[in-house]
């Protein structure tokens, strides 16, 4: 077997066998499963408790409370209405003590139409008061229609909602709803890219520094070319990352499939998973891989410069900052994906993986834009790989510490002397 594959498979297998990998994968998987089942879990804890809300009606009209009860029942069957005859003070007490969620004082106004006052301890439960207001509105409508002696047809005419349609005139523009959905998905995927790139790039730098500090490097590069070794390592760790992603996404997908019914609407559709755009996922994978390659190559040669594992953090710090800045720009850009600074920074290779992905996910870009971004990125990766390989080749044989820049120069010189 080619030594490239020996190094690759060794890197891959030894990484996925570590406790660290197994534990972090399982914890995250557990977290994903919890998130996917969140509605079930909430239901589980709520099912036994009083989901029913009790509202007392103090009917001063003496005739509306029954109709009101029926109307409310049609709107929300979890609201229980009890007609009350006790005094307001008594009801106030009951509300404050928690026996009642609220009480409503039902009266006639000057036109002999219903009006009401809603009393509750706080006004935080707005859905309850909204439901009651809605019911009252319907009640008032039907009473008013009665007074005006409208036919049922006329009533329907009145009640029919207006036809209102939104049309975007520009080409390739996403509707507001689509944009919100895409935003949710892009948001989640940006996080995935951000965390994985930082995590795996650090993993590579640490790995290289470990081999260097333990001097295994000397044995390794006497049998594998340093460049082959560097790329075998990068791809090995990339495979580790993909394994982890497949486990997570697979677990998440299965969990979501099972809960599909309960999950439609609400949180779920907010994050745009309902009708996930395939192209966004494809772009996410492409930009994840390219971003990984870019930063992994950088991490590998930075890792080759230090002699002790303790120095790894210090030397990859500037790289981490680049990733953080890219992430911040992408996050602020989520709100204004068509701002000029977003467009410009999406072509700066170190930011492209996150920002171009964000743009392509949110805007309907002409195809040449992401293609140009990807091309610039690939070109940068190639240049960085050639440069990185030269630094790596010299760097792995260099011990002692001085400043990073000087080290890069020295490492290049060592390679040139070869």
């Amino acid at each position, binding site marked *: *077997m080619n*030594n490239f594959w*020996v*190094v690759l498979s*060794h890197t891959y297998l*030894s990484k996925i066998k570590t406790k660290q990998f197994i534990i972090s994968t399982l914890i995250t998987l557990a977290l994903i499963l919890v998130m996917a089942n969140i509605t079930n879990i909430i239901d589980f804890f709520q099912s036994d408790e009083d989901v029913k809300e009790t509202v007392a009606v103090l009917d001063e009209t003496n005739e509306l409370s029954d109709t009101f009860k029926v109307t409310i029942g049609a709107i929300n069957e979890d609201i229980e209405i009890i007609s009350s005859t006790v005094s307001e003070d008594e009801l106030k007490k009951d509300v404050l003590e928690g026996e009642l969620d609220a009480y409503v004082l039902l009266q006639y106004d000057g036109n002999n139409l219903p009006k009401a006052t809603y009393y509750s301890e706080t006004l935080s439960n707005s859905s309850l008061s909204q439901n009651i207001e809605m019911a009252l509105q319907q009640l008032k409508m039907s009473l008013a229609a009665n007074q005006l002696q409208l036919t049922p047809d006329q009533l329907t005419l009145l009640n029919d909602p207006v036809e209102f349609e939104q049309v975007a005139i520009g080409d390739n523009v996403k509707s507001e709803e689509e944009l919100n959905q895409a935003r949710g998905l892009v948001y989640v995927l940006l996080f995935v890219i951000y965390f994985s790139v930082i995590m795996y790039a650090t993993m590579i730098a640490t790995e290289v520094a*470990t*081999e260097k500090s*333990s*001097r*295994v*490097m*000397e*044995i*390794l*590069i*006497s*049998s*594998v*070319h340093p460049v082959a070794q560097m790329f075998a390592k990068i791809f090995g760790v990339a495979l580790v990352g993909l394994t982890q992603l497949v486990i997570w996404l697979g677990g998440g997908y299965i969990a979501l499939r099972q809960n599909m019914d309960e999950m439609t609407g609400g949180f779920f559709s907010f994050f745009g998973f309902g009708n996930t755009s395939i192209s966004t996922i494809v772009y996410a994978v492409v930009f994840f891989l390219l971003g990984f390659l870019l930063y992994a190559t950088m991490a590998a040669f930075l890792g080759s410069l230090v002699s002790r594992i303790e120095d790894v953090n210090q030397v990859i710090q500037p790289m981490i900052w680049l990733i953080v800045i890219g992430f911040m720009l992408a996050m602020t850009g989520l709100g204004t994906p068509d701002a000029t600074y977003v467009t410009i920074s999406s072509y700066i290779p170190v930011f492209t993986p996150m920002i171009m992905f964000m743009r392509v996910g949110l805007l309907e870009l002409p195809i040449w834009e992401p293609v140009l971004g990807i091309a610039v990125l690939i070109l940068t990766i190639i240049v960085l790989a050639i440069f990185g390989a030269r630094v790596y080749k010299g760097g792995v*044989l260099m011990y002692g510490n001085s400043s990073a820049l000087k080290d890069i120069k020295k490492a290049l*010189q*060592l390679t040139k*002397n*070869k």
Partner: protein
Amino acid sequence: MVLKIEHVTKRFGNFTAVNDLSLSIPENEMFGFLGANGAGKTTTFRMILGLLEATEGKITWNDEKIDYSTSPYIGYLPEERGLYPKLKVSEQIVYLARLRKMNKVDALIELNYWLDRFKVPEYKEKRVEELSKGNQQKIQFIAAVIHKPKLLILDEPFSGLDPLNVEMLKDAVKELKAAGTSIVFSSHRMEHVEELCEHLCIMHHGSPVVHGSLREIKRSFGKKNLIVNADFDLTFLKEFPGVTKTKTTSEGVTLQIEGEHVAESILNKIAGKGFIRKFVLDEPSLNDIFIEKVGAEYE
């Protein structure tokens, strides 16, 4: 299977690490590299391994350049520990052996053989960081020889070992040599080189100062050691013509003399003065030669 180093010079910037080194190491030979720290030994080894390229000159093995195609035939034990601290012994030996084109099954068989031979079979599933320095060195040695290399490069193989383990490793080295492996090794310990090597080279500031077979080196050195133990005072021999160095011991003196003829005149001089317990003319030790050539600052 001849390793040839021809007029090799290695410069790092302005610093010359190795200066015009020429050597030839035949098959089935054990070749010793001596030199103080920074004398250029490790740089030379790295050039032999192809880790560094010579600034001038060339290194060939069987008239071929040493590169990644020859690496399966070469074994290397670096001076400092070169193992993964977190990996199990079996995992890393198999990994390193596979990089030298050996398959996993053979590597495990060989590993078992060597672990048994070094009397440490229980370390197979232990992580390297759990082992003592001496035991790590054994594992390092196994990593260097597991793929049965034809050329074995040992950089300070015996450092950090107790005398029993030194013997164990020495026996293994001798056996490999008898099986036809060419071995190049470096050491600070003169007696190891004296015991194991036919040919050697003493490096000083990157240049070879002494080079050749052990016997020739000793003969051409010219000077001899003379040990005289007697019941009377021998300190006057310090001034004797032809004596270059004197060391007083509890029982007499050890002299370094310019040749056999000086011993003869000394014997004539002291004969009859009293009882002479010991009068031995000895070959110079490698240690003497080393000190003479490299300078007294190094023992």
